[in-house]
């Protein structure tokens, strides 16, 4: 394998059912190392389900998912190995409320990576710097604003030193004035060459950082295109309609 241009995430013929409802329908996607993919589409189109399959928070029913050379299946060792290499940022932050910001950041490195405490704390402070809130280390999550909490959540993922970052609508639960501080951090992260898969409706962000746009509807990938083409002349009517709706204002 050629590490520079190899695909780091490979979804082949992936389908997923919730009861009789087909949430994902024959998804084929390969993400290259260092590539930034932005996934958009109407709600209920399967964007979150797809991204959650990549670190197996959801189990796919058909097809294959290979992440960083490891195939996801029943093997829990494999699943944990993949999860250590894949950071995830949630819509609702999901910080651990009983731990301080610093403890939120160090618990993964200490318990999962078996790093000693001093090193983990140094690492944590370095990433708190990166997300511009070094002064909040000793507070509890509930004492922070939504934007600050989401930046802590990003730092928590980065502390595991992942090779891939997944973002599941990271700004959807934020007040409008806090969206940009989170997007700024994500743009900076994109600048470091991190492989990123981002589910979002923030089209300004997508234009700025995406290498490829993926448009989903009803569990299918309807269109995959570079952002320049996607925003100016999408092939599908569905994508055009969707863009009209969200770019109207």
């Amino acid at each position, binding site marked *: 394998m050629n590490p520079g241009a190899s695909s780091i995430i490979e979804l082949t013929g992936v389908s997923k059912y919730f009861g009789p409802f087909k949430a994902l329908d024959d998804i084929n996607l390969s993400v290259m190392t260092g590539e930034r993919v932005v996934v958009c589409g109407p709600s209920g189109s399967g964007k979150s389900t797809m991204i959650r399959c990549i*670190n197996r*928070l959801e189990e796919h029913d058909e097809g294959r998912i290979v992440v960083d050379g490891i195939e996801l299946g029943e093997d829990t060792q494999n699943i*944990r*190995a993949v*999860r*250590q290499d*894949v*950071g*995830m940022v*949630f819509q*609702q932050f*999901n*910080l*651990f*409320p*009983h731990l301080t910001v610093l403890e939120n950041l160090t*618990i*993964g490195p200490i*318990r*999962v990576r078996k790093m000693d405490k001093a090193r983990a704390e140094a690492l944590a402070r370095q990433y708190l710097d990166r997300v511009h809130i070094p002064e909040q280390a000793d507070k*509890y999550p*509930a004492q922070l604003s939504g934007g600050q909490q989401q930046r802590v*959540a990003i730092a*928590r*993922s980065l502390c*595991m030193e992942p090779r891939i970052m997944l973002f599941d609508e990271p700004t959807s639960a934020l007040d409008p004035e806090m969206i940009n501080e989170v997007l700024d951090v994500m743009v900076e992260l994109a600048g470091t060459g991190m492989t990123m898969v981002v589910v979002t409706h923030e089209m300004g962000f997508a234009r700025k950082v995406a290498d490829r746009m993926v448009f989903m509807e009803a569990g299918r990938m309807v269109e995959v295109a570079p952002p320049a083409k996607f925003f100016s002349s999408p092939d599908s009517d569905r994508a055009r309609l969707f863009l009209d709706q969200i770019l109207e204002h």
Partner: protein
Amino acid sequence: MSAGGQMAGTGGRRAQPRPQWRRHLGRVIASRPASVLIYFAVMFAIIATALKGAEAMGYNWQWYRIPRYFYDVTEGGIVLGEIPWGLVGTIALSATAFLLATVIGLIVALLRLSDLIVGRWVAQGFLEIVRNSPLLVLLYVFYYVFGPIFGLDRYSASVLCLAVFHGALISEIFRAGINAVAKGQWEAADAIGMTRWQVYRYIVLPQSVRFMLPPMTGEVVNMIKSSAIVSVIAVAELTTIGRNIISDTYMSFEIWFTIAAVYMVVTLIISTGATLLERRYTVRD
């Protein structure tokens, strides 16, 4: 009163708020001095009736003989009487059984929440059997059946019986507490690659404590109270001591009142302590 009556009269057909005199009366009844007064009146009525009944049957009250069952002053100093020793027995028995019950409860709860079908079945079966048997019958089974089979003495049989009985109840407390932790917490912990055990240990159980603390206190109190049942197989504890003293002295009224009061003091202390502890755990969030 008459002014109040007028008010009620002028209310007419419309749905009026309660007339003024009734609101006033309500406020008087709810006030603290009135509550205390009513409490004492009721207590007085109960005690008076009891005393009268005791008098009618010619009961010979001998309260003066009670203190020496608590302590005795001898040349060597103050010596604890039988009742404090009985209390020590009760507390030791309850504490041992409670520790064991907590372990059993945690294991059963984790089994019920696990992906193992056999584990869930075992836990569910255990729960149904224990919950649907009277504690007294369970004690007889442990002492007269398991006792000879596994060579349990009466103390171990009592501890195990209480632990199993309360373990089943505690497992439900654990399960509810664990389920009360938000799903996103599991996902966040899974997403950084924690094992199932690590998720429980570092993320979920610490957060369930505040959901579990109030019902767990209730279980401590229940444990102390239900430990009295082992007196039927003559394990040395507070209730057994009470029975023994009565069989020597025939002072059943005084002794049972005293024993009941001792239980009440202990459980009240525990409840108060738990309230303070709860306040500590609700600070964050």
